[in-house]
């Protein structure tokens, strides 16, 4: 196995990319995903594997500097066994060969010779220009030609995917790629939201799943977005988090009124629409209010749970809304306990909370998983469409 250098991804793949396989890192335009290729290259070199890097749209010098800027000094591209075919080579081929066929042959020869001379274990290819110059099949033939011998050369391809899912399908069905990883972006400036989707693995029946990530300290770090569940005390937040989650944890104490009350954060994890989501349920008592701003700071959305039978608690909920709106993040209101008598009218609640019709409000019973999931679905939709 060759490690991708992204620990969460390696775990999903079963410790990395199998030797001799073909892997695609498909980048959507604008998504900062170049570190996937570079960290995989770094891991291959660290294992002493001989690598060929094909970079038709840049020079070796510029690539080394880009890598140093992105990845720091951890990747040694000077003393390690790495050989390059770069933009200067492409230009020479363009000039010397008259036809597309002749150019393809020249490319093929250069790749084959580099692999033979340097006993290459892994080819890292930046694919865009090869694809544009020769079409998908012919470009892949160039790369595949070096993999035909007895040695199992691994092929890792990075491609700027301007064609979306149909192109990924072609890599899987027509070109028999073993791993297809799509690196995508929500393109919302604040908070910026990148994620990778494991689209296909040939060696294990892994589910299609998406994991957000951030780039920090020259590393790709899978990132779990935060949804905060808040509301006045005894409104049903812990029940909500528990019923929303695949797994979770709550820290409760018995309150003075005999009811259980949350005294620290509730945590819950769930899978929703290919995202791994973490829920943070806050304690509802006012004495815990200082906890709320730090938790809202990195939140992508908020669910405000209120007790739909307790009008006296609505001023407190309104105060919480004021704290939420300062962060300019989407939020929705879950009016809980709609299965009890004396449930307030929607208009009364909206008036008391000072919210207009643009804020979704659901009457739910937090004890019903289907109600809870309806609220979550609405919030995830709001997060994806929120205009900042």
């Amino acid at each position: 196995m060759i490690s991708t250098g992204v620990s969460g991804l390696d775990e999903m793949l079963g410790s990395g990319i199998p030797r001799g396989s073909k892997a695609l890192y498909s980048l959507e335009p604008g998504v900062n995903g170049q570190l996937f290729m570079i960290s995989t290259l770094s891991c291959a070199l660290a294992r002493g594997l001989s690598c060929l890097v094909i970079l038709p749209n840049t020079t070796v010098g510029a690539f080394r500097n880009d890598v140093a800027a992105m990845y720091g000094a951890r990747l040694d591209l000077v003393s390690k066994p790495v050989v390059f075919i770069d933009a200067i080579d492409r230009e020479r081929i363009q000039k010397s060969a008259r036809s597309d066929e002749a150019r393809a042959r020249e490319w093929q020869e250069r790749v084959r010779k580099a692999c033979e001379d340097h006993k290459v274990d892994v080819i890292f290819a930046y694919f865009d220009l090869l694809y544009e110059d020769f079409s998908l099949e012919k470009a892949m033939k160039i790369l595949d030609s070096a993999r035909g011998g007895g040695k199992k050369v691994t092929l890792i391809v990075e491609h700027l995917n301007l064609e979306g899912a149909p192109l990924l399908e072609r890599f899987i069905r027509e070109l028999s790629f073993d791993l297809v990883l799509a690196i995508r972006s929500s393109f919302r400036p604040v908070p910026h939201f990148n994620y990778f989707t494991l689209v296909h693995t040939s060696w294990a029946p892994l589910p299609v799943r998406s994991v957000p990530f951030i780039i920090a300290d020259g590393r790709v770090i899978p990132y779990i977005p935060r949804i905060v569940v808040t509301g006045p005390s005894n409104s049903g937040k812990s029940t909500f988090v528990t019923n929303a989650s695949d797994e979770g944890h709550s820290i409760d104490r018995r309150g003075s009124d005999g009811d259980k009350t949350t005294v620290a954060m509730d945590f819950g994890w769930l899978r929703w629409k290919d995202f791994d989501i973490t829920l943070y349920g806050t304690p509802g008592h006012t004495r815990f209010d200082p906890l709320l701003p730090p938790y809202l700071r990195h939140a992508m959305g908020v669910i405000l749970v209120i007790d739909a039978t307790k009008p006296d608690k609505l001023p407190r909920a309104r105060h919480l809304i004021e704290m939420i709106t300062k962060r300019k993040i989407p939020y929705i209101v879950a009016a809980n306990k709609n299965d009890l008598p004396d449930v307030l009218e929607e208009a009364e609640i909206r008036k008391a909370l000072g919210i207009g019709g643009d804020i979704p409000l659901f009457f739910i019973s937090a004890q019903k998983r289907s109600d809870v999931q309806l609220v979550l679905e609405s919030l995830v939709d709001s997060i994806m469409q929120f205009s900042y």
Partner: protein
Amino acid sequence: MYSYKTGIAQIDQISGGFEAGTNILLLAPPMSYADQLAYALTKPLQGEYAIVLSTNERAAEVIDAFKLAGADKHFTGVIDAITKSSTPSIADTQRMMFVSSPTDLTGIGIKFSNMIETIFEGEFSDGEAGLFPPPIRFCVNSISTLLMYRRLEVLYQFLHVLTAKLKKIEGVGIYLLNSESFDDKTLSLIKQLMNCVIEIKIEQNVSYLRVQGLQGVSGDWMKFSVSKGQVTILP
């Protein structure tokens, strides 16, 4: 919705300027000072931001041109696709980012996203505050050069993404294209991505422009001149 003033009094009075989300094709023959007009339209006004993707001039030259036009350099960023080929070690700053060549659409897309993100996070202007949400003017100088390096179909797809993003962040985009170097198919395909076209022509050393797709503005040719970032419609 925010309106971006063109800086041309006669046009701003009638139309109020460009609506947020407008993508404008600047179609001009060579030697027509089209880049000066593009920079004048891109120049950030008070509280606005500008980003230039430059495939023809170095970042320092672009910044100089904007400073000459009276723009605040703290609110002007450049994605430079020229300098890195001769100076591979050049490092990015918040407002000057470098890609290896105009072929590098991956790099261009990433730097564009990075700059937008930096603006939205308030880290673009060394602590000086602009408006929020930030009005952003974006200029591509030029599509003609990009077309020399990448195929039309690929560039169309790329620009499709870029123009859509501009709409989403409610910016304006100004894209220069040489009107004499490309066939009708190319022009018509690129026009499909735009909602406003400004054409330039030169006759007897006089520059003319005409605007199509801007509400209230007639499509007649108008004489104009550009000096220090100021466009003047001549009688």
